[in-house]
């Protein structure tokens, strides 16, 4: 399976009479976007705002971040099961507005964190301070149920990302990245001497505000299964998770899965990248056992030598992570796990809710309890009402000068557990 990703670099975003990409600037027609979002009768208003790297802007409460992409050649379309029919993606050509992102904001529940600061201390931690963001602040009709509001927000983000992605359909990419994956047998023939490695991708699947979708299916209801790595690049996996901002995997990070990219980078050189195993993080213990047994079983079926296991969330998922690690190691497959830590504000507490000696190779995204001071921003995109709650809600508080003292965990994707960032801890 071969996928060419055509990157069109976006260096600025502006409102314009016509939505288009010109000389690295993404122009967006506000009214068209609003109209698109408000097709959903559960939504009453949609403010469209723009946030660029370096600006004194705070976006909150963030729900999801999505990268605009468009399928130019090959089967299916981006975000299958949502924006396009359920047809296998991951092959052909896909164009990407690299450097642009759609950010959805809206208060689904009162304690929902998710801050993106475009400058200052917070900007160092979130990857989305480096993207040119089209922010959608979306309000629902009165008394809309939280589940339905979450669904509407999720779909609105995907719609706008698809709409913006379309602008790239006929553009010539600035850079083309080629990802080719041979399949199990051919890969083995081609690289008989290289260690066989797969990626075990754990998907958040605990329930409301904690869900992930694969081709439109709730991962909670699926057995552990396999997916071609290139399918992820076409939006096969969509996030429905918006609690625990720091260690969530927004749709953007699924589209740009860093472990898949790094395994491709070594494919045929130091290892043979066999494929991606997707498994879930259900609350029900029997599900955990079944899913982790299945991960280990697939690792064995594939005759792997090694596996990288990534996680999403804290507490309950730590148990899945350790179960996966233990069982896969027990099959003789060497693992590296990626997690993050809740070691207390002073860093002195036991970091994970579960532990095992089998997990002897760990990469950490950092301690999410560390307290940071976020300076006042000139502009807040989102609900001010909510900013009050978030500040009071965290151990710190909204300071008289408008700054916020909070734990790192309020920052979107700050301690991402797919290894998207350089942050770590010792």
């Amino acid at each position: 399976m071969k996928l060419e990703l055509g990157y069109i670099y976006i260096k600025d975003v502006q409102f314009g009479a016509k939505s288009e990409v010109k000389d690295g600037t993404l122009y967006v027609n506000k009214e068209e976007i609003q109209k698109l979002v408000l097709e959903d009768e559960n939504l009453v208003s949609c403010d469209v705002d723009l946030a660029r790297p370096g600006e004194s802007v705070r976006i909150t409460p963030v729900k999801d971040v999505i990268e605009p992409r468009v399928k130019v050649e090959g089967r299916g379309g981006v975000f299958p099961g949502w924006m396009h029919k359920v047809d296998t993606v991951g092959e052909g050509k896909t164009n990407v507005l690299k450097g642009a992102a759609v950010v959805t904001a809206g208060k689904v529940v009162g304690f929902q964190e998710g801050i993106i600061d475009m400058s200052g201390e917070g900007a160092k931690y979130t990857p989305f301070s480096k993207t040119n963001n089209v922010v959608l602040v979306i309000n629902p009709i009165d008394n809309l149920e939280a589940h339905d509001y979450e669904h509407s927000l999720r779909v609105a983000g995907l719609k706008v990302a698809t709409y913006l992605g379309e602008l790239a359909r006929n553009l010539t990419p600035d850079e083309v990245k080629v990802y080719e994956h041979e399949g199990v047998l051919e890969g083995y023939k081609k690289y008989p001497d290289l260690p066989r490695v797969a990626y075990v991708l754990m998907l958040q699947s605990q329930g409301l505000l904690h869900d992930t979708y694969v081709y439109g299916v709730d991962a909670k209801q699926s057995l552990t299964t396999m997916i071609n790595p290139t399918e992820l690049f076409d939006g096969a996996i969509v996030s429905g998770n918006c609690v625990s901002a720091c260690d969530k995997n927004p749709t953007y990070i699924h589209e740009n899965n860093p472990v898949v990219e790094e395994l491709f980078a070594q494919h045929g050189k130091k290892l043979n990248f066999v494929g991606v195993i997707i498994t879930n993080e259900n609350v029900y213990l029997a599900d955990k056992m079944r899913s982790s047994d299945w991960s280990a079983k697939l690792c064995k079926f594939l005759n792997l030598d090694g596996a990288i296991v990534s996680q999403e969330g804290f507490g309950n998922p730590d148990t899945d992570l350790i179960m996966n690690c233990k069982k896969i190691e027990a099959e003789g497959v060497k693992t590296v796990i990626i997690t993050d830590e809740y070691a207390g504000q002073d860093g002195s507490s036991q970091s994970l809710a579960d532990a095992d000696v089998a997990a002897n190779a760990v990469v950490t995204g950092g301690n999410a309890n560390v307290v940071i001071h976020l300076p006042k921003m000139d502009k807040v995109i989102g609900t001010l009402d909510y900013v009050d709650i978030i500040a009071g809600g965290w151990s710190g508080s909204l300071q008289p000068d408008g700054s916020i003292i909070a734990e790192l965990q309020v920052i979107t994707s700050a301690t991402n557990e797919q290894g998207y960032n350089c942050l770590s801890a010792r």
Partner: protein
Amino acid sequence: MNRAGKGSFSRSFFANMLLITNNPDVRDAFTDKHGITLRFIEGSYRDVLVAARDLIHSGSKLLTHPLMGSLKPNETPYRSVALAVMEGPMDMDSLMLIERSIETFDKFAAVTRPDRGVNTPERMLADFRLIDLSLISSALDH
């Protein structure tokens, strides 16, 4: 240690499922549900964990993860845990999990968060109840 049948419990396997909760919304939703006994605790998140631990000591098994959800123990005051009530040898896996969960709870409890866990405003409490109800409902397929 009795390991027979480990991990093979389906949702309908036990007629004697017990749901321990301190969340009034869960109580209201699960009262008189077929096959589920409800025990409502007038108390804290920790009290629910301790009640579950006491049952595990006498042979019951955990069905759901005691730390489900992404909300930290010092944020949400609500907790619901499902167990298969049975008498017999203690299930070590359940015991380890509940003990670790209580340990984690205590670690977080050491850091109090105004307006979260303590003095939580009602509009946030309602949301905390909703998340807890939603998670346990989807776990138990109700």
